């Protein structure tokens, strides 16, 4: 009897502890995000006050972002479209180059495949920021500074290695007999690639396409170094510029930051299952 009671008490304590930890995690995760919303809902003068909850919340800052009536926000929507298009191009090129390479290694099985794998691995372990200085110099030489193509080039370079790993692992689950059967029927490598390989790789393509799009949407350093004209910037660089302006329009900054953060969040939650299989598929060999 007392043993059962002790077990029940123990379970009770465990439940209370889990609830406390859960509450702490909610606060931990949400405080910086709450701060974003809190500041965005304030008027410019109220930003410099000691409140925790906005005294008179208003959507004024969001309206300012939408009609770009504040000078630092003049090019905001152009920057959103820059971020979007750079992301789309990066994702497309990553998918094209990644699948072509993984098809060469995994399906055509050339003897030099290991060199491609090692090149990808080598790129993967070089921190992106370490190549920023020479990359900037090279782009200067080519007259490519202030050109979105330079940003696209570097983002594709750093997104492709992971794409190649995932495509190779995923491709290994597609039976090789399919290729052989197609070959017997007289299919050429490009036909096998387009008609057999790509359709069967669809889930991995979705995962890596999302990965590359988000990598590009979130990238700051290279866009900051390589782009300078106001109308060519991506959003994170535009947000960074706010910080250096003499006025501190924190409410507009936070409202713009929220508008910029919403699309990737929607993608994360919409593609959550596919993303996590994509991102952790390789995590463990089960």
């Amino acid at each position: 009897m007392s043993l059962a009671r002790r077990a029940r008490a123990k379970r009770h304590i465990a439940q209370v502890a889990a609830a406390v930890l859960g509450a702490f995690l909610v606060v931990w995760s949400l405080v910086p995000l709450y701060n974003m919303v809190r500041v965005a809902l304030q008027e410019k003068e109220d930003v410099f006050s000691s409140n925790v909850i906005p005294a008179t919340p208003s959507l004024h800052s969001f309206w300012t972002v939408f009609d770009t009536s504040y000078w630092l926000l003049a090019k905001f929507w152009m920057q959103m479209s820059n971020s979007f298009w750079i992301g789309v191009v990066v994702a497309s090129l990553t998918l094209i180059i990644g699948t072509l390479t993984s098809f060469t290694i995994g399906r055509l099985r050339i003897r030099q495949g290991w060199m491609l794998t090692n090149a990808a691995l080598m790129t993967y372990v070089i921190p992106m920021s370490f190549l920023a200085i020479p990359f900037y110099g090279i782009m200067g030489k080519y007259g490519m500074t202030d050109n979105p193509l330079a940003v696209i080039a570097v983002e594709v370079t750093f997104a492709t290695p992971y794409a190649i790993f995932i495509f190779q692992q995923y491709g290994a689950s597609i039976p090789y007999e399919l290729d052989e059967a197609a070959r017997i029927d007289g299919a050429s490598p490009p036909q096998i690639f387009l008609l057999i390989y790509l359709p069967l790789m669809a889930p991995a393509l979705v995962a890596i396409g999302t990965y590359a799009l988000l990598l590009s949407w979130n990238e700051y350093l290279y866009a900051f170094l390589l782009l300078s004209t106001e109308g060519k910037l991506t959003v994170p660089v535009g947000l960074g510029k706010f910080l250096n302006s003499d006025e501190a329009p924190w409410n507009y900054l936070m409202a713009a930051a929220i508008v910029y953060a919403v699309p990737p969040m929607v993608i994360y939650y919409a593609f959550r299952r596919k993303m996590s299989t994509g991102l952790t598929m390789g995590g463990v060999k089960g």
Partner: protein
Amino acid sequence: MAVTSTIENPVVARAQTRSVSWRKLTRSDRLWALAFATPYVLVFAAFVIYPICFGLWLGSDPATYRQLFADPVYPSALRNTLIYLTVAVNLKLFLALLLSGFFMRKGWWTKILLLIFILPWAVPAIPGYISIHWMLNSQWGLVNNAIWSLLQADGPPWLDNSALALGSVIYAHIWKWLPFWTIILMAGRMAIPLELYEAAKVDGASALDLFRHITVPMLASLYLVCTLLSSIWALGDFNAVRFISGGGPALSTHVLATLGIRNAFEIGNPPLGMATVLSALPLLIPLVILLMRQLKKGQVQL
């Protein structure tokens, strides 16, 4: 083509195509392979090999290193980098290890909690960091406002004190990346066969025994790979320091990645910036070698 001549016997044909495709490629196959591999080879040559060579050339003058080591900011940046790597990465991964167990609990509210928990990871880095920067403002930030309204006392000057500012950078790093590593380690835990736990429970093992004798050894190599990979990424991390402390106060919280960019672009001395970055190679190379060795063992894949 050997395939057409043996087409009468599908079994032979199949065996032969396999051996053909494994050993010898036909001429046209080889041309196709060349064409398919070309885009990546070009990208690799133009945007990885060329910048590496150019960077090594930029940072090849010994005099630059004398100038770098004489810079009073350099030792503190090196120390901060080491602190960032050891404290932020290891604390984050240890928490991720524990939380990955917590999130394996069954029940609807754990699932909802997990959705909230991954928010910092889903929000792009720059807005998150900018918000933390303003949240920690000593005069008008949310944290000190909350301290004031609860205790009627002034909170600490989070970003105006070197130690607190570095601590704030570490906090921001953990806040941003904890969800990602927790999910990776959850995937690792899911790969552990449940029978192991059940068998141990039958033998009367406690929860702590299960953790120590099953979870820890089964996750060890994944955990090590996570540590190495996370260290490499943290070594190149620019955004956290840039947006949380900006390297301040008085340049005391720079890390090598941000100091390199500062030397190259703000001071306008690209060779000095490159030397700063290259001086991190003695840290980077051992991490990479250990990672490669661990990956070669084949228990964990990227």
